[in-house]
């Protein structure tokens, strides 16, 4: 717990991460509008790779890094290794690295700036992990911290695989088919990093927000083992064995872990004091429901034993754009107003405004409705290979994320609270 007002972080360590992430989210959807037709083809395309990395690194990883700088020391009751210089360095490296990498993918040119970008991203990830490790190593929350620590290991691992793939483009050295490694890289990023981290943080925050007794750690560990055993099995199979049965088994183990996670969230809600959810929590519930979508899109794997490219692409898009995108949108309004509020309140007098005064609830609802209205046709367009649906969906998502981006800027400028 933060013992004193003085320990509130410097603005530079947290808030710029949110701003850049919101901008990257908007740019991703705006560029989807320009490149909607490529989503009806194979997933291994320059623009698809560029947009995926823009969203994953520029938005997902960026906002998680910023939020974890603020939240992990609070939850673990330990300090980061460095609270000022390292976060700013990580922010700069990740921003520059992402911009260079996305430009390289978009133009499918792999030159010195591609590898400079990769080096910047890898350095940023390692520095952030080092910074967090100091706060995580002696903390007591075993289950949650196991998930967060392991997620960070997977992030480093997937970044290394991604770097290897890029080097392989220029100087071929991998013996196994490039696409096999790409699947490993993507799934480690999705399941090992994003899903595991979100499960880890939410296993603590959801009971906290809902005011319910924390469910037993055993339940969280069951999810932890399911995710990691399934992922290791998938990875080994993709690289060495290429067995369809092992693939299906690995996916089933992960889906079972997701089912246990859904039960954990539901049980928290059933045992909560606070049954009336605010918009942030209602939208978080929606993002958990959207996790069903990528699971359903895995159906061909169980029916025909393989994933057609359009289903693979829809699976990835529904995971990132659906689950991760909506949880980012929802949780921004459960974290950023509090962070800005903590930064702006006067420590010598009682605050006249509360965090809820720092944003507009109606706007939160509108932007999510528009986003979902765009997301669903976009995914349908990928599955049905119909570009018209992708264009319409991308247009609505771009409007939604532009509102979201402006909303984030207004929160940071304290325009709603007027303090």
């Amino acid at each position, binding site marked *: 717990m933060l013992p004193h007002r003085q320990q509130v972080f410097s603005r530079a360590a947290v808030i710029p991460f949110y701003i850049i992430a919101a901008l990257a989210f908007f740019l991703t959807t705006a560029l989807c509008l320009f490149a909607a037709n490529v989503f009806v083809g194979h997933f291994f395309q320059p623009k698809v790779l560029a947009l995926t990395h823009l969203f994953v690194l520029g938005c997902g990883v960026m906002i998680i890094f910023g939020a974890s700088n603020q939240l992990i020391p609070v939850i673990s009751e330990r300090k980061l290794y460095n609270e000022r210089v390292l976060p700013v360095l990580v922010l700069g490296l990740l921003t520059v690295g992402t911009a260079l990498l996305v430009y390289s993918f978009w133009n499918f040119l792999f030159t010195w700036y591609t590898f400079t970008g990769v080096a910047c991203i890898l350095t940023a990830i390692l520095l952030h992990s080092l910074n967090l490790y100091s706060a995580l190593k002696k903390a007591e929350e075993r289950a949650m911290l196991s998930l967060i620590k392991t997620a960070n290991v997977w992030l480093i691992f997937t970044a290394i695989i991604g770097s290897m793939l890029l080097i392989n483009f220029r100087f071929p050295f991998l013996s196994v088919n490039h696409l096999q490694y790409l699947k490993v890289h993507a799934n480690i990023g999705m399941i090992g990093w994003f899903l595991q981290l979100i499960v880890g943080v939410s296993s603590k925050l959801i009971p906290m927000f809902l005011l319910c007794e924390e469910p037993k750690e055993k339940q969280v560990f069951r999810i932890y083992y399911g995710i990691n055993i399934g992922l290791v099995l998938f990875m080994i199979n993709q690289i060495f064995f290429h067995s369809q049965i092992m693939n299906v088994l690995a996916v089933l183990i992960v889906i079972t872990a997701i089912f246990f996670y859904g039960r954990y969230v539901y049980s928290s809600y059933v045992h909560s*004091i606070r049954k009336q959810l605010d918009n942030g929590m209602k939208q978080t519930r929606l993002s958990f429901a959207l996790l069903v979508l990528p699971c359903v899109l895995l159906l061909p794997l169980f029916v025909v034993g393989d994933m057609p490219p359009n289903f693979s692409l829809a699976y990835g898009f529904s995971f990132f754009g659906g689950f991760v995108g909506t949880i980012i949108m929802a949780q921004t309004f459960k974290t950023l107003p509090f962070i800005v509020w903590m930064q702006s309140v006067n420590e010598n007098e009682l605050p006249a405004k509360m965090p809820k005064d720092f944003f507009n609830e109606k706007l939160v609802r509108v932007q999510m409705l528009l986003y979902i209205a765009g997301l669903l046709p976009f995914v349908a367009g990928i599955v049905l290979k119909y570009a018209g649906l992708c264009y319409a969906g991308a247009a609505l998502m771009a409007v939604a994320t532009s509102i979201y981006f402006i909303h984030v800027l207004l929160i940071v400028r304290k325009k709603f609270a007027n303090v």
Partner: protein
Amino acid sequence: MFEIGISDPFYEIKSKALIALYEVKDPELGVNIVDLGMVYNLEVSNASIILYMTLSTPSCPMGGLIISYAKIAIENALPGYEADIRLVWEPKWNYECISTEGRAALGL
């Protein structure tokens, strides 16, 4: 919920402190800490007031600020007194601690 007996020798001081604590709100819930049942006890000794209070969870991200504001509220209401805020975890805070007004404010 914490109550002050009319026969308490420090009734007036404690009442002033308690009224001041109604101004301290949990930023997430938007309800004051008295109605949330987080105030467990108040003690007065010489020029200091000891507040025994709890939080909804030990790792509450807003805990530090709630404590700071509880201290400011008491010291503003009672000039010349120093507030000493002590966090306690027994009895554990739960739904039963919330007052009728608190439950109404939370929409329960």
